[in-house]
């Protein structure tokens, strides 16, 4: 059994990797296994965690949960062509609730908090002296403030990017490009270690070529 599990895992691992060469029968088989099993897995989890765990167990204690169940049943009316349009009701419920809920959430976490964090002094005695500490901190704060400012200018929709405004917007997109370049370069290492982990499985756990 242990041998079988090891070979199965290796078979599936190589099947996925083979996609890098091209789409092939091995990958198709692996993919079909993955889709079938995972869809089943999620259905089971949804049923036990959400329907049983959140609704069935608590329904007598919190009768308002029936609202959710009724909306869910209305969703199934799609299967009846003549009154299928009723399924738009739960849909519009979800759209309304998602919009309402996230409006304030994003407002506080993305707007208020970020503005608060950008209120920085451009100079402070605490920065220390010397080029390495003092200047780096002053330049750092200056970059954060002007970068955030010009980045916002870039996102302006209702004003053409011309003249001084256009130049600020240009600075903004440069700052954003530095952000993207930096985050990209930063993640390379962890992506590489992901595959090192798989190689380690194949060469060490499976074939015992390395320790």
């Amino acid at each position: 059994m242990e041998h079988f599990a090891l070979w199965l895992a290796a078979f599936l691992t190589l099947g996925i990797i083979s996609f890098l060469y091209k789409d092939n029968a091995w990958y198709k088989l692996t993919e079909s296994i993955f889709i079938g099993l995972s869809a089943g897995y999620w259905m089971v989890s949804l049923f036990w965690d959400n329907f049983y765990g959140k609704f069935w167990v608590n329904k007598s204690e919190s009768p308002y949960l029936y609202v959710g169940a009724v909306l869910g049943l209305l969703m199934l009316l799609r299967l009846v062509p003549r009154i299928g349009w009723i399924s738009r009701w739960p849909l519009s419920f979800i759209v309304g609730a998602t919009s309402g809920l996230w409006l304030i959430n994003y407002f506080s976490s993305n707007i208020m908090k970020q503005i608060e964090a950008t209120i920085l002094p451009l100079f402070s005695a605490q920065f220390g002296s010397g080029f390495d500490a003092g200047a780096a901190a002053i330049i750092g704060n200056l970059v954060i403030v002007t970068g955030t400012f010009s980045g916002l200018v870039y996102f302006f929709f209702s004003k053409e990017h011309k003249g001084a405004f256009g130049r600020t917007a240009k600075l903004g997109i440069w700052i954003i490009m530095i952000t993207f370049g930096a985050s990209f370069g930063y993640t390379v290492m962890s992506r590489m270690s992901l595959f090192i982990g798989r190689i380690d499985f194949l060469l060490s756990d499976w074939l015992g070529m390395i320790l």
Partner: protein
Amino acid sequence: MKTIGLFRFLPALTSFSIAFFIIFSPALKAQAPDDSLSTTSPDALAVSIAPPTSLVVFDYKYDDGEALELTWVPSVDDLPVVGKVTGYELYRSDNGGEFYKITELIPGSNNFRDEDLSTGVNYVYYIVALSADARAASVKTEAIQTHREWLNFNLKYLFLIALIISASVIYFIETARRGKKLFVRKIAGLEAVDDAIGQATEMGRSILFIPGINDMDEVQTLAAITILGRVSRVVADYDTKIHMPVSRSLVMTAARETIKASYMAAGRPDAYSDDMVHYVTDEQFGYVAAVDAIMVREKPATIFLLGSFFAESLILAETGNSVGAIQIAGTARPAQLPFFIAACDFTLIGEELFAASAYLSGEPKQLGSLKGQDVGKALAMLVILIAVILATISEIRPLETVRYVLDFLIQVFTIKT
């Protein structure tokens, strides 16, 4: 085009909220814990550690009458690292009943918020300091009840600023609806949509639309669905094939509804089929495995990757790139944007994703909302500018008025919980 009736509620809604705010504004001042009820006296028992003192209980402000706040001065034997106190136990009695332990606390703690209480019950507390071999109890507090508030004044600035920005969005929607022309700059990724679909039509290949891997309770998915509405309208006009594998059942339902609507609006309801949208699996990488395969097998001419993406962003975008498709991507997840920038032809960065459907619709009132957003940006920039200048001044020369204004600004943008 006539607007719907609901829209007329708006002015009323706005004035209602303002009135709400003004009427209750006297309560703004009543923030101090004015109903503190107890004082202290040294504990009578002789023990090897000193008890906590000054235990005070007061109603937690702005809740549904569910919480009380307790503060105390820790035992004098409670010192970091060398202190004798190993922790605290907090006891409570409900309506004169027996005292029971409600929580254990770590050394150095001096406050606790007792939650899940009910209104109309008298609560009494005391706290015990623990050491390895001794206990020392504080005096009991006097009985207190929780109080229910109807408005949360901790969030008054959040409310005010949200109101200003929402009002500006609505104002510009109204202005545009009345026919005032508003300028909106070009967004490259969206200008390309028509061409990209056109090219797919010419080549006789399909369009792949991936709405992210989150469900309908994520705003980015909503944004993707609204964009789908515009894209599928063009698709219906051009009679191109659209293919949309999804990873959530609800997204499948919403997407079908959306595409169907577009085909109807284009006057070709018969050309629509439910098979355009199909469910694959909820599992993140299982879905990715399937979509990658679809890209390679179908070789779509155009791929839209719009919505909420995680690590799969680059797997999908690179595979799409390798089959030579024109890719238009967009997400509001900053960590994934670099990968789209690297592998796609056009990328909608954050805010542009949410603006896309308004932009593509070309309807004045939709475009008006974009102008409203800009007011928000201008406001944010103004605040940053003023506050940074003030912060710098007060670092160089501590002036009281500057400090005062700065503290106020910081307070406005700090959200209390």
